[in-house]
């Protein structure tokens, strides 16, 4: 059961606010301000504009963590608050609270780190002028002693745990675009097998830094202008920053504290296409298999799916193969299809997290948001019900697709509670 939600990205800092922005058709992708991009071939990104101090009021901690961690911790604590976790814990006796903490899991999807973390060494390398000995000798004068700890990929697991006293089973998944979905999936499975009673699944990422943007551009992955998924003229993806989190509880745990139940996770599927880091199979093999596995675990027929939230990253082959896969699995009866990255960019390791949070928020409002920048659907995807305008979902169930480097795919099915 999903009992708490949190999200932050370029479009806003709460799930409802982000969804409102999407429904208004607002594109929150803008010129990246972090460096002088005048001569750059790619200048767009979905940057979170809030200062770290606005998000986390802990100056000491902020010195130790990066932006990706800030948005992750912020989204996590928003989700914990919305689930009423701390209020509930105040009512517990100390021994009960210990066992609450030990049965509360943390599953985080994140990047393994980016290039800018290493730039702290550039002044030293420059000064050393080719002498490795000098680098060793002057290390302590030049680089912050906490450099390694500041750059640990598992910082959000650590700090969300310490700040909120959560001590259960945990994982930090560094699996590119499927990291966020896998964090939800592993949290879901930990509840099913009884490793935890409650868990938080967090995805966070901040890939908008020069070297990453340039590499993506050189690899042909970035859009010339807008991110226009499924459009004839689509030209690629745009990176974005953000985080999203979900609090999961077993039905028993949620009911025991009369928690608000937003939705239920019904099934998942994870597959790999195994053809290398960047290639995507045009026949949609991995996506189709992931969807089938998720339907099977959920015990659902295709007609019972109310809406599909695609990965929709705007690259030519990814969008096309997703469409092909959906057609293969759903035949002619396909529910409305939408996606969200066009509004705030591809959050990479947080993509599956924010897509799930927004899918759920949209289901609760009974709406399939339109893909605002879509003008001409790719002719080869013409027969798919891709939402050019907002529509109603067929049922209260959503299928969410995520994809990542290495030919990895995940599918997740959730059902919103009626309200």
């Amino acid at each position: 059961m999903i009992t708490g939600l949190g999200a932050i990205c370029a479009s806003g800092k709460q799930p409802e606010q982000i969804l409102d922005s999407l429904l208004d058709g607002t594109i929150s992708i803008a010129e990246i301000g972090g460096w002088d991009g005048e001569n750059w071939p790619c200048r767009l990104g979905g940057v979170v504009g809030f200062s770290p101090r606005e998000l986390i009021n802990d100056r000491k901690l902020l010195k130790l963590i990066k932006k990706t961690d800030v948005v992750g911790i912020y989204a996590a604590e928003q989700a914990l608050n919305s689930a009423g976790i701390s209020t509930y814990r105040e009512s517990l006796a100390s021994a009960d609270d210990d066992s609450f903490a030990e049965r509360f899991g943390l599953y985080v999807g994140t990047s393994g780190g980016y290039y800018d973390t290493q730039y702290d060494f550039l002044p030293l390398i420059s000064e050393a002028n080719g002498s490795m000995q000098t680098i060793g000798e002057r290390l302590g004068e030049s680089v912050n002693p906490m450099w390694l700890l500041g750059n640990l990929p598992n910082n959000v697991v650590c700090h969300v745990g310490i700040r909120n006293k959560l001590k259960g089973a945990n994982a930090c998944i560094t699996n590119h675009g499927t990291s966020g979905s896998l964090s939800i999936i592993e949290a879901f499975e930990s509840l099913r097998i009884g490793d935890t009673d409650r868990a938080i699944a967090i995805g966070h990422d901040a890939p908008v830094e020069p070297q990453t943007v340039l590499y993506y551009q050189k690899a042909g992955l970035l859009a010339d202008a807008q991110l226009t998924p499924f459009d004839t003229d689509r030209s690629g993806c745009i990176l974005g920053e953000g985080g999203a989190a979900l609090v999961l509880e077993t039905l028993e745990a949620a009911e025991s504290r009369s928690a608000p139940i937003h939705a239920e996770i019904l099934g998942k599927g994870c597959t790999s296409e195994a053809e290398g880091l960047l290639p995507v199979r045009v026949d949609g093999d991995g996506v189709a298999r992931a969807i089938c596995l998720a339907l099977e675990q959920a015990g659902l027929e295709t007609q019972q799916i109310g809406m599909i939230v695609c990965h929709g990253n705007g690259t030519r082959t990814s969008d096309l193969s997703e469409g092909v896969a959906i057609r293969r699995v759903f035949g002619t009866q396909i529910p409305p299809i939408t996606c969200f990255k066009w509004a705030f960019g591809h959050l990479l390791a947080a993509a599956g997290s924010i897509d799930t949070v927004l899918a759920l928020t949209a289901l609760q409002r009974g709406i399939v948001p339109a893909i605002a920048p879509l003008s001409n659907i790719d002719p080869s995807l013409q027969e798919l019900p891709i939402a050019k305008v907002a529509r109603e979902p067929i049922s209260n169930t959503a299928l969410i697709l995520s994809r990542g480097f290495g030919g990895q795919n995940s599918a997740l099915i959730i059902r919103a509670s009626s309200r």
Partner: protein
Amino acid sequence: MVTQPRRVAITGMGLVTPVGNNLGETWQSLLEARSGVAPISLFDASGFSVRIAAEVKGDTYLSNTGHKRLSKAATRSHLFALASAEEAIQDAGIRPDAANGHRWGCSVGTGMVSVDFPELEALQREAAPAGELDTDLMLSSSIASDPIAFCRSQSAQGLSLLVERYAIKGYTTSVHTACASGGQAVGTGLKLIRRGDCDYVLAGGFDSMISPLGLAGFCLLNAVSTDNHNPHTASRPFDASRNGFVLGEGAGFLVLEEWEAAVKRGARIYAELAGEGNSLSSYRITDSHPSGDGPIQAMQQALQSAGIFPEQVDYLNAHGTSTPMNDRSEAAAAHVVFGSHIKDLSVSSTKSTMGHLIAAAGAVEAAICALTIHHGKVPINANLTQRDPDCNLNFICDKAKDQAVRVAMSNSLGFGGSNSCLVFREPGAS
């Protein structure tokens, strides 16, 4: 109806470690307690406060890394992964095929993203001549334009190389919980088979932080031993005089197989991967509580998950990094978990000979636990001469012990507070 959880057999293993380029060599070195620690040769470490590490020696493992096309986009640690995975797959005598590739999964513990130091130096020359990055200069930098450098440095690249090589089409994942990564990856493999997502999992970890940046990170934290003149005894877990860990590198992979399938094909089963436990210390980034809180829960959960009582455990492969705080917390945890059985429990940290393999450590030590069961021998905790009274465990010292190991346990405790514990059982037991 209560259904029995599916059991998991370890049917193949491969290692590349500072004490051997393969499984057999590594095991032999461990039994003879041959230290893998030596002066750093991979780069000029003369200016660093720490100048020793446990490097992988020689390059005979390279014959197992596969086609050039793959290894071209591989880092040093990816090459360790490719070699040890191949050894594990060959050792298991089974590999994914067109019919069952989708029932295979892959779960890897990987290190932090980093680029090779010469690449960072090139970037500095080309794009940060004065030390500050000039983004306009970066546009024409050779490194920032190199698609191979891009692929090599992606966190999913190690996993991607493996799944492509073996056409693994099921559940694939990379995890990073610092020093607990390898243990978590193997534990994830167990869960994937138990819950029916996979029938086979290639699970392991790989890492190499013996680079100027990796060493610098640990030197700055004063976490590594400065015994530059006595490399062989620098790593001395649980010794009163210990002063930090020794950085190692390498990889370990296991082929995990659903028990019935393994039995049916007559596979040699080293051991059963019987349980895993996982907890968060939530105390400090670098330490768990001196009381053992954190590791205690991971160990207890692993036993519970395996359906094993503490007194059934014969051998504990301790995380035992050789840092004062870690060793004390872990020893305290073992006392709580094992109670009076502690005096009968053989304990050693194999980091005493091969150093700390960081993200690979848990996977390599999982393989070592399976070998203790398979061979009935327990490797020593080297360099333990003055016992820390706060670490009063039944350490195996001096020479490897002949002992029938029915159940073995492996701990991996990471920076960030993640604790992973694995439990292994002799294959004949039920």
